[in-house]
């Protein structure tokens, strides 16, 4: 994986490894797009708690994160493929690798982990079968995302008081489960993070939208 050792091992051994996690190019939107009744539940929830991040509302509502994101008025999503993942993450690269964000992941929808990290940026070379993102010039988070398993990508703007903006980019799998999310809290719309997020938002807005 992230080390020289693991890079060597993966290069040698993972050429055939992609099939462990097989591609699910399902078009079954019922798994990742909110139904009308779910949409109603989600809207009611966010009417009362507009600031709740997706993993929290997902758990509260017992509706997967992807569906929750699909139902929010302040959220836009794109059906993902490896090319789109790459394009989106290139805009995240522009947020600045010295900027701080909150990384949130849930393991199979059950176990939650959150931590602060510098913005993980894409690598020049990827391990076979992966889209690699490293933070802090390799000294921080190492992420190896299987691009075939990223079904949708959402950008979400959460309203906040006191002029703050909470912004999120979330990757979901074909079941609507969260793979990883970057959350940003910023006060000024002119901040580098906010401007970077706006670029990502604009890109997603220009692409074919999920659940439409």
């Amino acid at each position: 994986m992230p080390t020289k050792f693991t890079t060597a091992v993966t290069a040698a051994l993972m050429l055939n490894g992609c099939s462990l996690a097989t591609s699910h190019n399902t078009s079954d939107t019922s798994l990742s797009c909110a139904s009308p009744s779910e949409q109603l539940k989600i809207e009611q929830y966010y009417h009362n708690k507009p600031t709740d991040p997706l993993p929290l509302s997902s758990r509260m509502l017992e509706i997967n994160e992807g569906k929750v994101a699909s139902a929010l008025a302040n959220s836009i999503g794109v059906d993902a493929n490896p090319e789109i993942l790459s394009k989106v993450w290139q805009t995240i690269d522009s947020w600045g690798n010295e900027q701080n964000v909150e990384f949130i992941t849930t393991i199979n929808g059950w176990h939650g982990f959150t931590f602060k990290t510098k913005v993980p940026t894409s690598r020049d070379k990827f391990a076979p079968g992966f889209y690699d993102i490293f933070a802090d010039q390799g000294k921080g988070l190492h992420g190896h995302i299987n691009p075939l398993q990223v079904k949708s990508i959402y950008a979400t703007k959460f309203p906040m008081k006191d002029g703050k903006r909470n912004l999120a980019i979330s990757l979901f799998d074909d079941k609507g489960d969260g793979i990883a999310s970057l959350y940003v809290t910023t006060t000024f719309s002119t901040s580098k993070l906010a401007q970077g997020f706006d670029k990502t938002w604009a890109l997603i807005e220009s692409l074919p939208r999920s659940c439409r």
Partner: protein
Amino acid sequence: MKYISSLTHGFNVKLCFATVLVASFATLLSSSTLAELNPITAINTCAVPAIQEKVNKFYLGKGKGAPLMIAGRALKLPEALIASALQPEQHIGVKADAKRIKDIWTTIDQWGEETNVRLVFTMGGSHVFDFPSNVPIRQEDLDDGWLDIFADQGDGVRGHLWLDQIKTVYAINLPGSDGTPTRAISFYAADGSLIIGVYASISTKSYDKAVEPGFEKTWALLKTLPKACG
């Protein structure tokens, strides 16, 4: 509750805190329906001889000292199955329940809150995230079905493990290709997928020597617990 407060930690959400508390409690009470939301198919994660042969061939060859997720991906096997297939002296696998997991993590606490480790997450073998962290320490036990673990007194990683979903725990100690062993404590779901791996050291990588006595304590505890296989 800590899961909730942790998720909201970065958001400065204070306005509806009381509501969140009430709602989180209600959610935990109704958590049985989460099984329908995220079903996990249990498998037999105990390796048969053919699997053992495959895994040991890997580790005797070019995979020497490789972290388990690399072996899992290379051999296209669930990670818990890989762990169970290692040579007897290289692993201890135990059946998990809430008390055992808490006891195990209490020994991980003893590695030292300022001791550096590497944490690894995978999602069904598809995606891998790993990062350096100080040892995440158990938080107050609310006996609510969660194990809350925070590093750096809450400034570092905040993890929330759903205890009922952890079925096995493995300690591994593999010879590395450069003399540095690969040592980890890994927690697995019923389908053999990794929930979290705490790597004390990884072959070819420098590591925090302070981890060694603590890792031995955790190893010793696992030796006393009911075995996952056999």
